[in-house]
């Protein structure tokens, strides 16, 4: 049966879970080369979306916990799986909150790990990791991916009482840090946690004394700051207790607590806004508003959409998960089996093959004959990237995108 065309094998493999693919590296040399290739990792990522919710426990210094998004339910408990940090690493006990800065394409960016001056890029699905040397200081940190330059970057802003001192950016592709000019007014305060990466930029809310609050964005392609407007007239109507920035379905979103008095009663409301068209102020849309008397809906923060795009998974008060059904406008508690300590909700990530060490192609440790073995997969040159309706030619030196029709045209039908 070895006459199966390589593109069909590639198609089947791109549908497998990451764990299966890690095991199937042992099948043969061409399979090892394919599964390790960054372009196959992208193709796989475009096709499979196994998302997992990430948690940590206050007293667990060497582990994170995850639950598959699909298994979450309000009817029964989901049981978290423990994932150990690589190489006996441990979190620094002094920082018990927010070790995971962000996740992009299955890579987690982790800080405050003992014996590691700097950051850890970790793919929990493949167990691959890379350490990035740096000196940790009091700072704002963001992690993001820029698809157009295929690079992962860490943004670091050193913040002092009198304003921003230094801005630095790490590029995984270049494996080095650069300094960025401070060409923007950072105001008097910026939220230091929860920097959000969407649309090739890292975002945070910035407050000024006599100007409207804005979202500051660091463009990961241009390495420059820009501002993104909040909803029009946003700050005028009522006092906003807190504004938290997040992302939902690839869009920026805001979780806002509003304080007002009605009939001499103090009322706290929470709203969720989504910026449907990136950078367009008028596209901010309110998608959720809690009832003032609903005690279940306090300190909400969106995590992600479920597969039906009508249910939103939300975090409540750091440790609880809820579904918001937008059709019936109701909340449902999500049950997580929680034997000892409280699980603190960190993040959502996708299972992927993306390697922090192979972003530029193969590493020196990979087999020397890799380029030669790629020839096996090059025999029928094309790899379909279904979701985007484009085809990536597969190989280290080819970077052309073929029209979908060329792949499925009559000329490429396999006739033996």
């Amino acid at each position, binding site marked *: *049966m*070895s*006459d*199966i*065309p390589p593109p*069909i*094998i590639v*198609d*089947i*493999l791109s*549908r*497998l*879970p990451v*764990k*299966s693919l*890690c*095991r*199937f*590296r*042992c*099948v*043969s*040399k*061409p*399979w*090892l080369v394919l599964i390790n290739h960054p372009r196959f990792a992208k193709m796989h990522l475009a096709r499979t979306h196994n998302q997992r919710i990430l948690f940590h426990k206050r007293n667990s210094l060497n582990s994170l916990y995850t639950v598959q998004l699909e298994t979450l339910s309000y009817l029964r408990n989901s049981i978290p799986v423990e994932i150990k940090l690589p190489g006996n690493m441990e979190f620094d006990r002094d920082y018990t909150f927010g070790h995971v800065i962000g996740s992009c394409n299955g890579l987690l960016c982790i800080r405050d790990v003992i014996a590691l001056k700097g950051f850890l890029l970790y793919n929990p699905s493949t*167990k691959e990791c890379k350490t990035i040397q740096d000196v940790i200081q009091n700072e704002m940190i963001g992690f993001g991916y820029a698809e157009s330059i295929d690079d992962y970057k860490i943004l670091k802003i050193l913040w002092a009482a009198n304003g921003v001192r230094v801005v630095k950016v790490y590029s995984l592709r270049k494996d080095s840090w650069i300094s960025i000019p401070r060409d923007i007014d950072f105001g008097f305060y910026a939220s230091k946690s929860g920097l959000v990466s969407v649309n090739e930029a890292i975002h945070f809310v910035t407050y000024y004394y006599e100007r409207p609050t804005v979202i500051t964005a660091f463009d990961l392609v241009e390495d420059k700051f820009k501002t993104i407007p909040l909803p029009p007239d946003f700050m005028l109507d009522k006092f906003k207790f807190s504004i938290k920035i997040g992302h939902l379905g690839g869009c920026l979103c805001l979780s806002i607590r509003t304080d007002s008095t009605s009939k001499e009663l103090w009322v706290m409301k929470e709203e969720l806004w989504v910026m449907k068209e990136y950078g367009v102020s008028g596209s901010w849309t309110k998608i959720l508003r809690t009832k003032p008397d609903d005690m279940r809906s306090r300190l909400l923060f969106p995590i992600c959409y479920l597969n039906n795009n009508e249910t939103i998974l939300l975090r409540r008060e750091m440790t609880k998960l809820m579904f918001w059904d937008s059709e019936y406008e109701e909340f449902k508690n999500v049950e997580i089996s929680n034997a000892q300590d409280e699980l603190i909700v960190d993040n959502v990530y996708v299972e992927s093959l993306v390697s922090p060490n192979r972003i530029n192609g193969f590493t020196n440790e990979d087999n020397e004959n890799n380029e030669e073995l790629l020839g096996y997969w090059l025999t029928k040159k094309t790899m379909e990237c279904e979701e985007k309706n484009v085809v990536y030619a597969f190989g280290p030196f080819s970077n052309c995108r073929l029209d979908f029709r060329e792949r*499925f045209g*009559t000329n490429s*039908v*396999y*006739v*033996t």
Partner: protein
Amino acid sequence: MASSSSSSSTQVKKITLKAADGKHFEVEEPVAMEMETVKSFFVGNEDAMKDMVVPLLNVSSEHMPAILDFYRNHSEFRKRTPPPPAEEVKAFNEAFLENKSDEQLMEMIMAANFLNTKELLNFLTEAAANRIKNKSVEYVRAFFGIENDFTPEEEARIRAENEWAFDGLDED
């Protein structure tokens, strides 16, 4: 459930397909046109070639009835309003794969690839992925007919590096 509405309406045009082993199949035109390979055979020659037999070099007659059944049912699913319940489509798909050996599945994948029908090919490659996802390396080699070209030392090293991925496999 599969209706034979053709009897009541006007005569539906048939196209004759010839499987790899020479056996002929008379197929309603809309069903035949689900296959891009058949469709492209007639492009520009709609009238001149209407009586021709279309040779399908890579499809054995063993799989033709099942494949045609898939096209008939799925094109009916697509046309139906309201769309059929997910359970009905799932039940059909499961029945389609029931009792098919790995070898038969791969042969049908090759046939779907040759016939150039994306829906059937996607469905079958997804089925193949589901079959192998919890299987051993040895099973997968046999499934695809792949020769192990690692030395024992190389294989042992890669196995050790990915040891955690060998937990909880199904039996072969």
